[in-house]
């Protein structure tokens, strides 16, 4: 209860979606995320960049409590969504995750048909009143995921029989279908060709009109193209966070500069 009050106090800007305070994540003894404080804005695309293994995925997963599923993972500090502490015992992680959708780094389609993969979220959240509506949602989501044309004739085939990039887009479409308020995307374009990438970036642009999007990417170009804010992680630390333009043109921290210019990894 006290936490809660405090939480509410912290919300001063209305367009802050996520506030994190001194977040630490441990895997057993490994300290994977150290003291991360970041405010993620609403209706904004935030990019997480940083060398492989620096903790981007870990931090991203802590934003919708996906780390709960890893037995050895432990999160400390405070993460507020709309001013509410998501690690509060009163919070139902299920509801949280419905609000904060996620696309994983490794595509993980269900061993079901393509249709059922997409329809899964809407079904459990009761987003469709009938079959026709559900069909609509599926088509719409697949279109947004830039996959519709490739799979429209094989909706009943298993999602696991798709190519790597197709699976990735399927997972994007699946996440979009539940209409989350925040979408966390872990390298959503890693297996996509430039055109598909462009389509996904378009989708991200469209989503940001109403929602908040957080994207992990290794492509500076992509970060520069789609995001308004960028956070640079290094060895578990949030080194720098600010407007994307500023980070890419005029980074404050020397490490950021080295990374962007390709000197540290």
């Amino acid at each position, binding site marked *: 209860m006290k936490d809660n009050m405090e939480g509410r106090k912290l919300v001063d800007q209305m367009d802050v979606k996520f506030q994190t305070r001194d977040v630490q994540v441990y895997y057993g003894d490994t300290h994977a995320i150290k003291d991360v404080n970041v405010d993620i804005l609403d209706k904004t695309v935030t990019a997480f960049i940083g060398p492989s293994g620096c903790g981007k995925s870990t931090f991203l997963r802590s934003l919708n409590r996906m780390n709960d599923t890893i037995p050895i993972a432990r999160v400390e500090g405070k993460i507020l969504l709309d001013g509410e502490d998501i690690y509060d015992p009163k919070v139902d992680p299920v509801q949280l995750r419905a609000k904060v959708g996620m696309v994983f780094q490794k595509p993980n389609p269900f*061993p079901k048909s393509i249709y059922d993969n997409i329809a899964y979220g809407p079904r459990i959240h009761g987003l469709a009143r009938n079959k026709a509506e559900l069909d609509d949602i599926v088509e719409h989501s697949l279109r947004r995921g830039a996959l519709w044309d490739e799979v429209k004739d094989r909706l009943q085939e298993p999602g696991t029989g798709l190519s790597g990039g197709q699976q990735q887009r399927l997972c994007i479409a699946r996440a979009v279908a539940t209409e989350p308020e925040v979408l966390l995307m872990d390298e959503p374009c890693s297996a996509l060709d430039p055109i598909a990438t462009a389509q996904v970036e378009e989708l991200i642009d469209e989503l940001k009109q109403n929602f908040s999007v957080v994207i992990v990417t290794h492509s500076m170009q992509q970060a520069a193209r789609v995001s308004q804010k960028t956070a640079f992680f290094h060895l578990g630390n949030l080194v720098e966070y600010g407007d994307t333009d500023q980070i890419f043109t005029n980074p404050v921290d020397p490490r950021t500069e080295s990374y962007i210019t390709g000197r540290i990894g």
Partner: protein
Amino acid sequence: MSPLWLLILILVLAIAGFAIGRTRAMASVDDHRKLHSRPNYYGTNVAMLAFAPAALLLAVWVVAQPIVINASVSHLIPETSYEDAGALNLIMSDVKRVAEGLDVAVAQGALSAEEARSIRTEFTDVRARLGEVGVALGANVDRDVLRAAQAYRARAATGTWFMTAAVLIVALAGFFFAIREARGDFRARNRVENGILTLLITAASIAILTTLGIVLSLLFNTIEFFRLYPALDFFTRLEWAPSFSGRGGASALGILPLLWGTFYISIVALLVATPIGLFAAIYLSEYASKRVRAFAKPLLEVLAGIPTIVYGLFALLTVGPLLVSVFGNGGLLGVDWMGGGRAVMTAGITMGVMLIPFVSSLSDDIINAVPQAMRDGSYGLGATQSETVRQVVLPAALPGIVGAVLLAASRAIGETMIVVLGAGAAARMSLNPFEAMTTVTAKIVSQLTGDSDFASPEALVAFALGITLFVVTLGLNVLALYIVRKYREQYE
């Protein structure tokens, strides 16, 4: 040399071969990386070639030699002394017994080897001499039999000698052949793996052999049964009432009420075991802490290890009366559905309890093997744990779970003790699950272990029941396989 010693000898040869093959292969190249396979494969290849063909030959020989000798010796029996093949057979078994008896006598020192070769029925009471060393003979030994037996022994000795030679030659041939092969470019791994594959196939065909064995061991008596009892009655009659008093065809031996009881009881058992087992499995693999799981799972497995007689008594003394007090006359529900403690429900529920671990433990392992990424994908969409389990994990684990349930069903069909004590011995065709019924299996056991005339249809019917049940379950399994194939989902 006796087969056992021969076996040990070729085993030693194989072990030596392993070492030599390995060393030779390594020596054949300057750098062992140039070997096609790892050195151990070369060694194994030598061991395999030295051992396997020789052992196989040995096995075949040990089985075939008596048959061959039997055939050759039977010519020594004058045709006048027997009427038909059956009688010759009898005489020959006598010959063998005498021959073995002589062997035993020699081994025990009751006869010298020379004596054994030369004794004559005219001068020695062979039956008595052999009786002294504890060899059972059916009748006094006549001259021809003894002569044949002596020939039998002589030929057996020669045969054994040839066997020793042949097996050793084959072993050595394999040995040297493989040693010669142990060179860098030889595909030893492929050879060894083919050998292993052969073993795997052999193992898989044991199932076929078992089936064949079962069918054959049931078939003759079944045919005999159908000679005595009309097949049509057996398959279509709605009554099971074997009689005792030698009243001939008065027994009613219709299988249908038994089959009905079998399926009714099995279904009740599965209705108990499947949900409980499945929910237990889900809880153990998805919700329970490691601690709880490590403790609850083996405990549940104890249920599978409690002897069925305990379950039977449990059904008879606890479950039955309990059910009667609920569903019986003057029971809690005020209905009078249940006359006595023995009922389909009693047996079904008890059997269901026994089958819980079959479903729970196997399913738990399978559910646990579903990759975490599947669950993550579902949680990431805001699914609750139960939605994840029901809609993602279970479908992915379905083939295994079906296997577990089928196994439980099989067990239910094959169970006797619980049925006898829980459901009774009376065959009946009724829809009321609170009535006593019985199963095919229970009747197989009771007719086989009963007191009726073993040549009568009442006893032989057990075999016909066995084979019919076999065919029926075969059909059900084909159906199950078809269904599983249709709904199989593969992850990744």
